[in-house]
């Protein structure tokens, strides 16, 4: 059974990639040779346009710091809980211990409460006088002072000590009330959140922030305090309130100072030179030989040994995988 054209082309592509000569490849597919030739010539042309493999650019190597920061942030929740070992859920006995550590004091508290209530009930049964906690007395008494013509001292049964309690507790109550009114509605406010990440897709009043926890849509407006210029690719610390899942309104945006970038790194204008398919990139960007595995010719940093920030960061030699295969 004769092979299909797609199969023949696929085999021919593999043969050319393996270094075989075009004519010998065509000779093996005489039935399709006429149609294969122009396509294989185009393939050769495409492969000639590919640069030779080279090292990772210094900027790309520096970008590992973004990944490392994300890894470190991801490690945080795991470290915060001693029961969790490197993100693994706690085992059954760890959960049991946690439960036990809570249940012992809870049991003691319940026992004390039971003894207290039983004692009070017994006291009522014997004396017929219901013991009222001073705080309850204060609460009952306090509004009576506000009523016209009433006086707290009219209560003949109210002892001096109770009044002193009332005065003292009233002071503390007003103090605590003052604390509460200092931040009115603070409990009703949406929770504040601080995110660190990389800016992308900046569109005037909204941008995307890629963080270790995921990608957030961040809205900015006239109330947002912005430090620095919001630019795609920059790192930023954003504080604000969560408005929906993965959405937040920014109160402050702090753009991190750009470090480690080549001197010719232009601040991109949204939509100008990053438009897909835009053929003429005006940024010093895509040098002719900076296709996969290529070293940028126009970067000012040293090409082969980019500054890598920690021993764990990748070296720039590309491991020989530069533009090559597997």
């Amino acid at each position, binding site marked *: 059974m004769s092979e299909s054209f*797609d199969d023949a*082309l696929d085999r021919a*592509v593999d043969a050319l*990639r393996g270094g075989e000569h075009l004519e010998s490849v065509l000779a093996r597919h005489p039935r399709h040779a006429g149609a294969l030739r122009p*396509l294989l*010539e*185009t*393939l050769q042309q*495409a*492969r000639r*346009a590919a*640069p030779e493999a080279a090292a*990772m*650019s210094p900027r*790309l*190597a520096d*970008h*590992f710091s*973004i*990944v*490392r920061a*994300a890894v*470190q942030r991801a490690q945080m929740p795991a470290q915060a809980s001693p029961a969790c070992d490197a*993100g*693994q859920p706690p085992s059954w006995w760890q959960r049991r211990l946690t439960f036990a550590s809570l249940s012992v004091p809870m049991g003691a508290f319940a026992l004390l409460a039971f003894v207290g209530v039983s004692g009070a009930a017994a006291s009522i049964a014997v004396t017929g006088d219901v013991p009222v906690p001073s705080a309850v007395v204060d609460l009952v008494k306090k509004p009576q002072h506000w009523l016209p013509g009433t006086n707290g001292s009219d209560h003949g049964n109210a002892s001096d000590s109770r009044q002193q309690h009332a005065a003292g507790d009233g002071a503390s109550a007003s103090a605590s009330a003052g604390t509460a009114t200092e931040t009115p509605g603070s409990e009703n406010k949406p929770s504040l959140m601080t995110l660190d990440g990389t800016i*992308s*897709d900046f*569109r005037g009043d909204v941008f*995307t922030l*890629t963080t*270790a*926890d995921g990608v957030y849509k961040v809205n900015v407006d006239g109330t947002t305090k912005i430090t620095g210029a919001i630019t*795609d*690719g920059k790192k930023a610390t954003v504080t604000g309130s969560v408005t929906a899942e993965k959405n937040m309104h920014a109160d402050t945006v702090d753009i991190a100072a750009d470090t480690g970038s080549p001197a010719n790194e232009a601040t991109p204008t949204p*939509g*100008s030179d*990053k*438009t*897909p*398919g835009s*053929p*003429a*990139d*005006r940024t010093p*960007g*895509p040098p*002719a*030989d*900076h*296709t*996969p*595995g290529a070293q940028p010719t126009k970067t000012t940093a040293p090409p082969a040994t980019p500054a890598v920030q920690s021993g764990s960061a*990748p070296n720039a030699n*590309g*491991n020989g*995988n530069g*533009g*090559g*295969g*597997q």
Partner: protein
Amino acid sequence: MAGPAAVPLTHAPEERLIEEARSLSEDAWAEIYRRHAQQVYGYIYFRLGDQHTAEDLAADVFVKALAGIKGYQYRGTPLLAWLYRIAHNVTADHRKAAAKRAQHQAADEPEDVEERTDALQALDDRQDMMRAIRALTEDQQQVVILRFYHEMSNGDVAKVMGKPEGAVKALQTRALRSLRRILTEDQEGRKSA
């Protein structure tokens, strides 16, 4: 941060690397980045044609991989195939966002268009080829980049794309035909100009 076994990860098999990466080992992520960042960058660069954007998005790919590594199951398919799939999605999102921005700004910058036209004429063969590749459909671009530049086998490309091998072969044929047509039209257009 050292891994559980004090064996360097440089030559560690991929399965172990993924295991370490899943337990959030910084060394494992450094090794994954060292092995694959250049290829991920190259893939994105071919599709966008902007060096800085490609570098930024390449880092984003690894951050997204970190977020999804817990759910990643190693079944013999190279990790790079998974990273390419993330890169494909990241690039597609970026292109959509960029297209929206371009719509907003299209009418405002006539000088810009002229500049680009001038610059077009100065493009060399390599840039012509990249432009032609970016004019292909997304699927065709993916096949061309992975097959012709990243030397992936048809089977691996099929895994990355989630398509049968036969579909990848058909895409390869269509991609080469389109590429030839675009390059020919480009040459003829330049001659007539």
